[in-house]
């Protein structure tokens, strides 16, 4: 039936990527009518999600790998899109969270009487355009193209407030992200092109037999630091700085588009460019160590942050390192874990950011020490925060526990027991930096001059602010149940022989 109306998976690839772009145009066009404008965003998101989930997902699950070549950007190099499990998962996350985040953004920006809302939603849609492009790119060049697009389109979002701090953060954001991608990732891409003559993503990788272990290590390092969006130390500094952005942007940065594009790129490169065999020779060892260090160091730093969003930012750095470590462990299970964690962390972290945003708009509080007893005023928000935290920590029955299981098991499978220890230690640290928010919020004693927390009449934030986090928190619960499906689906990226190695049916 889909074929009858011309919606082959191939054409859907293109349409799904272009829809956010069209949405951006519509947002500009409807700029004067806010409700119409938001309607454009939401319907764009809904259609995109429907296309990805309704047509691409079944096609790829059925073993299909739809592919479409768009145009030749350089001789011999096409801008092409393809659908494969890992990318599709990312596309699903991006398009589904786009809708939720947009809803939240409406509540946030209107509640906050923020100026330049049209600009905001335009670049928001453009960022999603970039994210979907990254997710569905069929070769490194296409990926690089969209990767840079995300950086550029999120810059106006990061600096949305236009203050001196925002400007400074924007400078760091753009400077770090672009200089690393241009300075490190681009040469890696060209190096690969020069060595192998192809930039296609192929199961099993394209580098096998072309580069030796040492070169592979250097190449991997170029990718690991070139994708500064993955926030490996020491190229993580943009992330806490970018916290000056409005909270929906932080949510976008942390969950939907930016950081996920970074870790997704790394995972994708490991699977489809390097291939597991090449990396299992120890070429990934240095990056593993750096990821492990980042994982722990960022957690420890998070413990000391009083500003809630900064705390969450460092938590994100740590969680991204989970994925980077998982990807570079180059064991089948760890890769599935990395893919799973992209999803689990997306939903968990976006919940936390929504909550932080709701608290900011409703109670005008940014710092932990001001939030004592706030949970009794905003129970839904804090309950959502609790569930989101548990998912990030990796406690059942929330989705995050499964990705932790896969990652840990992958570490063991890759014969790196220390990595198991690192994962486990990090989840304890995560309790240390997340649970105080819940405990203080619900049970803390508000300070005597805190009229807000002491006022018995004040209640939950507006539905547009409190329902999105509640929804995503429930998604975290639901993901616990559906993680099996996800893992089986992700196993498909490793090809038939390896998917039996991970134990997936």
């Amino acid at each position, binding site marked *: 039936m889909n074929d009858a109306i011309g919606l082959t998976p191939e054409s859907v690839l293109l349409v799904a990527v272009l829809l956010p772009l069209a949405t951006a145009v519509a947002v500009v066009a409807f700029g004067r009518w806010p409700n119409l404008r938001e309607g454009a965003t939401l319907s764009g998101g809904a259609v995109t999600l429907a296309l990805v989930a309704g047509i691409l997902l079944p096609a790829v699950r059925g073993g299909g790998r739809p592919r479409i070549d768009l145009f030749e950007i350089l001789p011999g190099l096409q801008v092409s899109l393809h659908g494969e499990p890992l990318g599709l998962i990312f596309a699903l996350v991006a398009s589904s969270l786009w809708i939720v985040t947009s809803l939240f953004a409406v509540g946030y920006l209107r509640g906050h009487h923020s100026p330049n809302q049209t600009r905001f939603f335009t670049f928001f849609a453009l960022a999603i355009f970039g994210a979907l492009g990254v997710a569905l790119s069929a070769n490194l060049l296409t990926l690089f193209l969209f990767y840079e697009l995300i950086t550029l389109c999120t810059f106006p979002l990061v600096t949305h407030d236009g203050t001196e701090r925002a400007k400074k953060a924007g400078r760091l954001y753009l400077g770090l992200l672009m200089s690393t991608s241009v300075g490190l990732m681009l040469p890696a891409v060209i190096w690969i092109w020069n060595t192998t003559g192809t930039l296609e993503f192929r199961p099993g990788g394209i580098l096998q037999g072309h580069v030796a272990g040492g070169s592979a290590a250097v190449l991997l390092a170029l990718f690991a630091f070139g994708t500064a969006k993955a926030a490996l130390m020491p190229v993580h500094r943009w992330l806490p700085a970018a916290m000056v952005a409005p909270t929906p942007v932080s949510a976008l940065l942390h969950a939907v588009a930016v950081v996920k594009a970074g870790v997704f790129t790394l995972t994708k490169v490991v699977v489809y460019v390097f291939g597991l065999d090449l990396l299992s020779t120890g070429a990934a060892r240095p990056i593993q160590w750096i990821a492990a260090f980042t994982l722990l160091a960022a957690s420890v730093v998070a413990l000391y942050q009083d500003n809630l969003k900064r705390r969450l930012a460092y938590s994100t750095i740590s969680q991204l390192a989970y994925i980077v470590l998982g990807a570079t462990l180059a064991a089948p299970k760890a890769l599935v874990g990395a893919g799973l964690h992209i999803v689990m962390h997306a939903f968990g972290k976006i919940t936390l950011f929504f909550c932080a945003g709701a608290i900011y708009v409703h109670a005008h509080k940014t710092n932990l*020490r001001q939030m*004592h007893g706030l949970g009794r005023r905003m129970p839904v928000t804090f309950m959502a925060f609790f569930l989101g935290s548990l998912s990030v920590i990796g406690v059942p029955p929330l989705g995050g526990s499964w990705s932790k299981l896969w990652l840990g098991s992958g570490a063991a499978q890759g014969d790196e027991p220390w990595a198991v220890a690192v994962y486990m230690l990090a989840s304890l640290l995560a309790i240390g930096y997340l649970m105080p928010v819940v405990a*203080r919020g619900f049970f*803390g004693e508000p*300070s005597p001059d805190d009229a807000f927390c002491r006022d018995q009449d004040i209640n939950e934030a507006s539905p547009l602010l409190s329902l999105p986090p509640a929804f995503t928190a429930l998604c975290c619960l639901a993901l616990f149940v559906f993680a099996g499906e996800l893992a089986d689906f992700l196993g498909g990226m490793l090809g038939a022989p390896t998917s039996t190695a991970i134990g997936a049916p």
Partner: protein
Amino acid sequence: MTGREPDGDGLRLLVEPATTTRWVRVLYAVCVLLVVAGEGLRFFSHAFDHVHYGFEAWPGFYGAFGFVVFVFIVYCGRWLRGVVSRPESYYRVDEPERSK
């Protein structure tokens, strides 16, 4: 919900100084009786035939063991208190650090 419970005057016997001494004497007497009972068992039944260890059959073994152990524990406790006892506020967080 509360208040219908009778005052425990009946139990006062337990602690009135005049009666405590009597209770203590009763306790000592029971102890002696128990040793006697143990010896009685030795002679009038075969209970001690099945003990696992020979020393279980010593006259008043359990009683002596209990007494000595108890005194030992208490003296150890007194010694331990000297080592590990700290002011009650030892772990208390300094005021400035406490959240407001």
